[in-house]
């Protein structure tokens, strides 16, 4: 009893106890998960802009070679390396977990904050240091590393590779710092979900967004150590001359002191991190997209349990497919067969998710709002990129296509465009809650259509380039006989599309800023959604989120279009009794037992 009392005191009183007052504690050294989320997101977007500009510079070189004189071979490889690393780690991982994870976990599970707020604040500031160290490499002598984002040794740490002096050291240091930041944040996300859910919020009542972030965080906590190990060891090889990864080697005519190291060991470690990383970015996107689809289609998500199981299955399977990135590094055919098989198996839970999304849309009351458009475009893009993944997962198909633009097209579609579509959808969806204002709709539609069609204009032709054998990682294709003229024209067209799509992202940022001051005031629950974050007493939610008492949860997050309910949604904190009263008032069968629970419960009655 005494413990219960203390818990209650903690639960109900905490909201007002530590309200920060000064500007510094409120917006800079904040321990509030919502502020930290915005800090994470803005930092990620800022560094993402750098990566966007780098992609422009690369595209200029590919589409219009020689037009920009400062883009030489070294610069091109530096841009490619930094573009990849920033987009994958410092933008997507950070914004999904540090940004959306931070904002949505406590609000969607009904907590006042993360369980370790100080650690959470530390996580952001350490992340910022990682970003600054990365940015520093642009200004270091020799510039950033040009080793490619995979940083394969020995080439990445030998003289002759751009950024040999400082770039590679700063890159590896930055990664190690990032992993420390991620671990601090990840511990928070997992512990909050396990230990700070509101009364009645069972694990299987959590919105799929939380499930996706939860499993992705677990994967990150297990996968990032592999990057840490390879990063530390590579750093030692470069800085003090150990021989973990570098074999006996001649460089620039001299025999170096390295002996017996194994480049393959690095590749194994890197991809043991690298492949789960794809899903660390994808699973939060899966979760968010499920919720956006359900809300804007006014229908419960199809197969909720199957969605959770699929997330779990993908999380586990993604740890045993890594070597499909190494088919061309040379491996025992039996290993190749094993990894090809696991790669194809992982398509099964993924396909289940896609079917469930489509079935959620089937016969639904679809509202083509901007978030919904982005969510639907995610499905299309993800299926597209996923199917080319099935090609590349097979050793015999991968070997000729590897190192061509087919691969570039595949991974940009599946883990570049698809997740970023969800990032946009999620921002349009939750912006009213975060700021209290709606984003401008016209700009939003324009942003969507140009981005969606534009990214297809960029990546669709790259598949063709890959088939005709245009190799990736080339600085210049001039005077190469095996490259047809059509490929050059196509490259120019892709560049134009890339520039246009890039410019539209600036418009999106303008919309973010403009709407913050001038946007229409948002009501508390503009999309009429059921999950807890839309039921806060204030919009935007204040420190402590819930005022005096925490919400109690009585249902799952997908009660849309329930027959007999006055609205077409019932929020998660609506008690059973209230609903029964509503039932009687509207003189509809008060029997709460659904007719066909295995088909998704209440919604079935509607069609009968």
């Amino acid at each position, binding site marked *: 009893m005494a413990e219960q009392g203390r818990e209650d005191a903690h639960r109900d009183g905490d909201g007002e106890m530590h309200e920060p007052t000064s500007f510094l504690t409120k917006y800079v050294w904040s321990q509030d998960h919502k502020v930290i989320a915005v800090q994470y997101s803005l930092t990620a977007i800022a560094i993402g802009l750098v990566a966007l500009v780098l992609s422009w510079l690369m595209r200029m070189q590919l589409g219009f070679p020689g037009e920009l004189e400062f883009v030489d071979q070294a610069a091109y490889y530096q841009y490619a390396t930094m573009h990849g690393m920033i987009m994958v780690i410092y933008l997507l991982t950070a914004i999904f977990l540090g940004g959306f994870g931070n904002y949505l976990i406590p609000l969607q599970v009904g907590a006042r904050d993360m369980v370790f707020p100080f650690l959470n604040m530390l996580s952001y500031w350490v992340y910022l240091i990682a970003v600054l160290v990365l940015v520093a490499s642009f200004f270091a002598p020799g510039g950033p590393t040009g080793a490619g984002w995979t940083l394969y040794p020995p080439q990445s740490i030998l003289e002759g590779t751009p950024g040999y002096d400082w770039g590679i050291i700063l890159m590896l240091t930055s990664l190690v710092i990032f992993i420390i930041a991620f671990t601090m944040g990840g511990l928070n996300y997992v512990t909050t979900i396990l230990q700070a859910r509101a009364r009645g919020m069972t694990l*299987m009542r959590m919105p799929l967004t939380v499930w996706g972030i939860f499993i992705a965080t677990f994967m990150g906590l297990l996968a990032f150590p592999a990057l840490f190990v390879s990063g530390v060891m590579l750093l030692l090889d470069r800085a003090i001359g150990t021989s973990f990864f570098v074999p006996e080697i001649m460089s620039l005519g001299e025999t170096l002191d390295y002996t017996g190291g194994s480049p393959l060991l690095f590749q194994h470690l890197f991809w043991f991190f690298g492949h789960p990383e794809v899903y660390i970015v994808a699973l939060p996107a899966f979760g968010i997209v499920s919720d956006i689809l359900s809300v804007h289609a006014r229908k419960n998500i199809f197969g909720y349990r199957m969605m959770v199981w699929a997330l779990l299955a993908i999380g586990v399977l993604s740890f045993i497919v890594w070597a499909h990135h190494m088919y061309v590094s040379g491996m025992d055919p039996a290993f190749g067969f094993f990894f090809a098989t696991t790669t194809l198996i992982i398509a099964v839970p993924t396909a289940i998710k896609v079917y469930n999304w489509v079935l959620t849309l089937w016969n639904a009351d679809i509202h083509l709002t901007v978030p919904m458009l982005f969510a639907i475009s995610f499905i299309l893009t993800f299926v597209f990129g996923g199917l080319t993944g099935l090609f590349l997962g097979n050793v015999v198909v991968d070997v000729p296509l590897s190192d061509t633009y087919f691969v570039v097209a595949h991974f940009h579609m599946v883990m570049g465009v698809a997740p970023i579509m969800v990032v946009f959808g999620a921002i349009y969806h939750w912006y009213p809650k975060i700021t209290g204002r709606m984003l401008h709709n016209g700009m939003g539609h324009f942003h969507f259509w140009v981005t969606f069609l534009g990214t297809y204009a960029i990546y669709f032709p790259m598949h063709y380039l890959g088939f005709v054998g245009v190799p990736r990682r080339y600085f210049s294709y001039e005077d190469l006989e095996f490259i047809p003229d059509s490929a050059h024209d196509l490259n120019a067209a892709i560049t134009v599309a890339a520039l246009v799509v890039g410019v539209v992202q600036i418009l999106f940022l303008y919309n973010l800023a403009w709407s913050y001051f001038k946007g229409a005031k948002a009501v508390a629950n503009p999309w009429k959604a059921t999950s807890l974050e839309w039921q806060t007493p204030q919009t935007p939610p204040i420190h402590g989120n819930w005022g005096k008492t925490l919400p109690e949860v009585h249902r799952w997050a997908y009660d849309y279009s329930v027959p007999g309910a006055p609205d077409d949604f019932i929020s998660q904190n609506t008690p059973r009794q209230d609903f029964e009263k509503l039932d009687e008032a509207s003189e509809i069968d008060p029997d709460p037992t659904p007719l066909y629970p295995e088909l998704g419960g209440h919604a079935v009655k509607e069609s009968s």
Partner: protein
Amino acid sequence: MSFFKTIFSQPWLGDAAATETVPGGNMGGGMRAPLKVKRTGLFVFMGVATALFSLFTVAYKMRMGMGGWTNLADPAILWTNTYILVAGSVSMHLASRLAARGKMAAAKYAFIAAGVAGFLFLGGQYLAWQELNAAGFYAQANPANAFFYVLTGLHGLHLLGGLYAWGQALVKASTGSNAADISASIKLCDYYWGYLLLLWLAMFAMLLST
């Protein structure tokens, strides 16, 4: 199995069904007791550390099969250090048991002894480094040496983190927080000391066997 019970529950059935398939303990209830929260966090962190050291072990074994590997002559002082770490863990466990029974004064001595053992262990590891360095076993001379420095260094860093928590608990104890709070902190240190001991024994066994 509550895991399967959980993932097979049918959330769309509402409250009645949820209480049937999910026992009260799983219903959630706002922020749980601080000890439980911190313990969960600590266990997750131990999971991360286990992943980290397992991957180093895999790398170690793989690298052994390649060229340029000379087995390391393990410094004798490592045995002394191991005994110190064992003593520290035993002492920490004792402190935790004593605190749970309310014998705070005795618990405090055992707790301090456990922390001191931690510092002694770190000092001993430093001496081992010195010894290897003096004998010419530089990190770049041989990957076995490099692994030795990396593994002991990282293990030491993890212990340093533990000692930071230990210091905080000590401050808490000397400023007179309530006994339950202090005993919870000691309990958490107990888990971590035990974990670091197991980790070290595993690393030490690997170093000795090669």
